[in-house]
């Protein structure tokens, strides 16, 4: 089993900074995932980047737990440090009625396209994003393709007109 004490130290440091930032901590396969309330995700990312050396957003993606679940959507932030080579994962849980979360493009520029993809595939709205439009699917596409309730063949058969 991989040693995760260093990662838990980062979580503890965050807790001492502001205890409201940390909702829950999950450890699995030598990786630590922190559930963050959506109001504080930008602050948490900013502190992790400036104070704790997580200078790289390795990935940002969405997940759909299924239409029967509440909260239904997850937005997952994979952080990496090029200084001490640790990885940390943050998660924001969103309900179906209000799938909104603040953008982290203010912290990492690379979040721009990642957030566009998450919006494209899951319909999660990123407040404050500079250019939130579809990135992979055609601009006239109906629906969000990676939602669990999206039919495999789409809503309508294809036609050019």
């Amino acid at each position, binding site marked *: 089993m991989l040693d995760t004490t260093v990662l838990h130290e980062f979580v503890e440091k965050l807790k001492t900074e502001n205890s409201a930032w940390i909702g829950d901590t999950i450890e699995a396969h030598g990786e630590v995932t922190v559930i963050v309330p959506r109001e504080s995700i930008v602050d948490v990312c900013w502190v992790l980047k400036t104070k704790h050396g997580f200078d790289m957003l390795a990935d940002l993606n969405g997940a759909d737990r299924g239409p029967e679940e509440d909260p239904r959507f997850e937005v997952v932030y994979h952080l990496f440090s090029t200084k001490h080579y640790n990885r940390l994962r943050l998660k924001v849980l969103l309900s179906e009625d209000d799938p909104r979360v603040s953008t982290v493009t203010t912290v990492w520029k690379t979040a721009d396209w990642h957030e566009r993809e998450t919006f494209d595939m899951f319909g999660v709205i990123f407040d404050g994003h500079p250019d939130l439009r579809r990135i*992979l*699917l*055609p601009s006239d*596409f109906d629906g969000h*393709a990676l939602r669990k309730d*999206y*039919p*495999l*063949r*789409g809503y309508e*058969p*294809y*036609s*050019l007109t």
Partner: protein
Amino acid sequence: MGLENTLFESLPDVLTVKLDSVINWARKSSLWPATFGLACCAIEMMNTVSARNDLSRFGAETFRASPRQADVMIVSGRVSRKMAPVLRRIYDQMPEPKWVISMGACATSGGVFDNYAIVQGVDKIVPVDVYVPGCPPRPEMLIHAIMMLQEKVMNESVRDRRDTFEEESRRAIVPGTLPITMGTESETAAKTATTRPYTIASRHERRKSS
């Protein structure tokens, strides 16, 4: 070269041929495909033109990067919905006469990608002349498809591709000039007999029959 030495000895100076057969012969002997690789079929298409299979033996090796200079569009691979308008635009930019080869299972029917992202057959977007099965088809199959297309080109008539319909153009003929001949009965019978059942009628053929 031996041709120059023997040609004038064995043939008269002037030959009388059908205009259609001369034009079709020229067209089929210099088919210029548009470079339009979409997926893994494109690798086989590249192999078709490279040394081992050497498509230039059949006069179709000049792949053009511009649709303005191309005759044949080889749709090699799956067509995504996002690519579909692009493909249609490239087809529209190709000058007449033009033909389309649908290469592989994905271009023909969507293949294994029966989902929202892939167009289920490129014939929903452009008229297809020859379908090639396979996943991916071997270069030999693509060569065979091009040769089938050449056969089809030989059976076409220049009249099929005019912009006006036959009746309208007949009315437009000035009295005293040569009327358009429709060909004898035996000729049309021979034409239909050689038509391959597994190539569908292109836009021009359908226009002709209507």
